[in-house]
């Protein structure tokens, strides 16, 4: 069930209403049942994978807490192996086999062909696996008590708003909220709906409109002029932000209507002055996960500069691999490794005195946007060859017939001048609004009239300018 579907239009109010109508002691059960229904609306059988990891991690948490020394570690490792094992089988097995087969063929072992698994990737696997792992790690570290109530623990993993695409929550933030009583609070309802409306606007009005152009161009990059490729690449930078942050806003908003508080996942990342700041603002729940559980475990910046650069490389390469079993994602991670290490080297060692304007926010923002956009080419391209084609075509900057090519392609892509005008004006509206209003939109609370204007204006834009093709969210595939 997609957030941008008619089913969710019924599911969400029914679940929220029932939540408040039911006595507190039954609410966890109601949310768990609703979450199971939500997840099973994709591929029902894959809920068994969730149950498998839930059972493993539930008992692992109790065992970790009740043991000390090497046993404690043993149970943690067992839990991590189970979670990573599920990821390895469902997400990375075929990638590994594909590369192994190619390697074997390269060395002449053509008869030796390892078999592929014919399976679909369970929706949101990387998200709920990482959330489950954060639980056992936190119990191991003593930051979280083991949850004795299996239903509550299952709900922690399966809570429907953030089940399939995050934010990847920490047990300290979320688990206790399921035990707390949340009375109906119209203020929270308003705040939640407001955030959901903003998320839907970004997804349906901007991301899904841009996807029409991006998909057409990126699926056949050889057929398009460099200007088309450049526009599609810039569009994808905006599309992925609107798609993913839109999802996060809807998830956080949906949870908020029931009184739950989920962590912020995006904080206007394209306003970042440098790449380091970008990663503090983009997919915050994942980047802090890697920081808390991998970077710091590897030693962080406590073991010298070289080790820090190594640790960063590991984190970003794994972050790339987390997104998908494809070399394009690994290259995307490698590029960000390069960016961040270069930035830190320049920041820490450069003795160059840059002129004042270079250090001001705007050039930094533009430069960071260009860097991230370049990396998005690999993220979006269907394969490395396509990504190379796109970048090399863009770099040719062949101005011959550029305008004609863009105009002609607009009709074949069905993305005419009006689509350009609507897309660009909505993007401007979004950036201006996000610049003026904090990410959580809570400042609107003080001005009822502004709030009414905001809500009705955004709703009207969604209804009258939305692209309602039931498009999935990009991050569902991860």
């Amino acid at each position, binding site marked *: 069930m997609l957030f941008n579907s008619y089913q969710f239009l019924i599911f969400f109010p029914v679940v929220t209403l029932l939540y408040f109508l039911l006595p507190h002691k039954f609410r966890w059960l109601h949310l768990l049942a609703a979450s199971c229904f939500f997840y099973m609306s994709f591929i029902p059988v894959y809920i068994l994978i969730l149950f498998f990891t839930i059972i493993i991690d539930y008992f692992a948490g109790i065992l970790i807490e009740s043991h000390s020394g090497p046993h404690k570690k043993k149970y943690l490792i067992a839990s991590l192996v189970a979670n990573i094992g599920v990821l390895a089988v469902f997400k990375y097995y075929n990638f590994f086999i594909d590369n192994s087969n190619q390697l074997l063929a390269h060395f002449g072992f053509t008869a030796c062909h390892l078999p592929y698994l014919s399976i679909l990737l369970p929706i949101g696997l990387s998200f709920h696996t990482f959330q489950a792992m954060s639980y056992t790690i936190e119990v191991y570290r003593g930051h979280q008590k083991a949850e004795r109530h299996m239903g509550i623990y299952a709900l922690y993993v399966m809570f429907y708003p953030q089940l399939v695409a995050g934010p990847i929550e920490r047990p300290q933030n979320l688990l206790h909220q399921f035990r707390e009583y949340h009375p109906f609070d*119209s*203020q929270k*309802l*308003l705040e939640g*709906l407001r955030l959901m409306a903003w998320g839907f606007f970004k997804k349906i009005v901007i991301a899904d*409109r841009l996807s029409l152009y991006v998909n057409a161009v990126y699926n056949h990059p050889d*057929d398009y002029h460099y200007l088309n490729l450049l526009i599609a690449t810039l569009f994808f930078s905006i599309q992925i932000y609107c798609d993913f942050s839109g999802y996060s806003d809807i998830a956080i908003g949906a949870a908020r209507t029931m009184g739950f508080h989920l962590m912020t996942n995006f904080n206007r990342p394209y306003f970042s002055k440098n790449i380091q700041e970008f990663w503090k603002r983009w997919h915050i729940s994942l980047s802090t996960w890697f920081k808390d559980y991998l970077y710091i475990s590897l030693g962080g910046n406590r073991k010298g500069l070289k080790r820090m650069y190594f640790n960063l490389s590991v984190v970003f390469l794994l972050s790339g691999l987390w997104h998908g079993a494809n070399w394009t994602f690994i290259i995307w991670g490698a590029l960000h490794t390069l960016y961040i290490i270069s930035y830190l080297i320049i920041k820490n060692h450069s003795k160059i005195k840059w002129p004042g304007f270079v250090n001001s926010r705007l050039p930094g923002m533009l430069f960071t946007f260009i860097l991230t956009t370049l990396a998005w080419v690999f993220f979006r391209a269907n394969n490395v060859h396509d990504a190379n084609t796109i970048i090399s075509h863009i770099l040719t900057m062949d101005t011959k017939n550029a305008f004609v090519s863009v105009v002609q392609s607009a009709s074949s892509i*069905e*993305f*005419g001048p*009006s*689509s350009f005008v*609507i897309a660009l004006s909505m993007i401007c509206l979004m950036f201006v609004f996000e610049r003026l209003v904090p990410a959580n939109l809570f400042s609107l609370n003080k001005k*009822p009239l502004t*709030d*009414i204007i905001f*809500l*009705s204006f955004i*709703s*009207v834009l969604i*209804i*009258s*300018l*939305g*692209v*309602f093709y039931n498009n999935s969210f990009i991050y569902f595939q991860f």
Partner: protein
Amino acid sequence: MKRPLIILFSSLAATLLLCTVIYHFYTAGITKFEVHKRERLKEIFEKSTRYDVLFIGSSRTHTTINPAVTDSILHVSCYNAGVEGGFINDFLMTYKGYLIHHPPPGLLFLSLDLWSLESQSGIFDYIQYFPFIDNPEVASYFRSNGYNTSAYSAFPFLTLIHLDDYTRTNAIKGFLGKTEIPAGEFQFAGYMSNSDKTIANWVNTPPTDSLKTLQLKNLSSITALIEICQKTGTKLVISYAPEYQRKLQMRYTNADRFFNAVDSVCIKHNIPFYRDDTLEMSADPMNFANPGHVNTAGAYLYSKIAAHQLTKSFPDLFPDIHNAN
């Protein structure tokens, strides 16, 4: 506690009001801009005039057959019910919807396109039919494709969510007083003239590196249409409209498969199948505004040819004309 709820309900009320206003602007604009399409669909789905010959097909029908010409040759009343798009379901829905209010015609002239059988159940472009969901057949097709027609009847502004940017732009153009019918063009009984432009200097060749493969998913709808005609005592003829030097067919890897499939259905049910892409006029660029659509002169010429073909195929329907010939 109360204030947030007041904000929510006020926002909801404002949204409904604004959307209703926008919907009325949209309706006014698109009705003006697509006046030819609206009038044709209104005639099909809402009026009850009796026609002797009904032409059904896509834009390759409504720009191709001029009922003024066929009327004058056949001495009957013809109507061109060509709709935008070319799926067989559009044609089936059009004909079933037509029969709700109109008496059955004596002859149904069905013009298929290469891609007519591509979709199993879909309609080519739902947007154009939204104003006519009061017609039970249109409503039935909408419902069977997942549209909640009650919701659209109660809140017509919900139509807005189905618009694409092209239609939105057309609505604005219409609101500004423009119409899709260019200056100098005209309509008559569903036919819309398609300019005096020719492709005499046309140099484009179809792309050969991205040939598409036709899927014949919906041959059964032709049979459904045949059965309806048999029940109502309506004669049926199937045609493939003129096309400049088979340029459309060259875009597909298996155009022959389409023709063979339609041919076998026609042979089985003893229905004439006019391959009008093979007419002499299909080789003359002066008859075409683009490779798939004839121009005004081409339509005049083809309407005469089609009328004479009909007199030969159905001498009992047009005895005077046939004997005179």
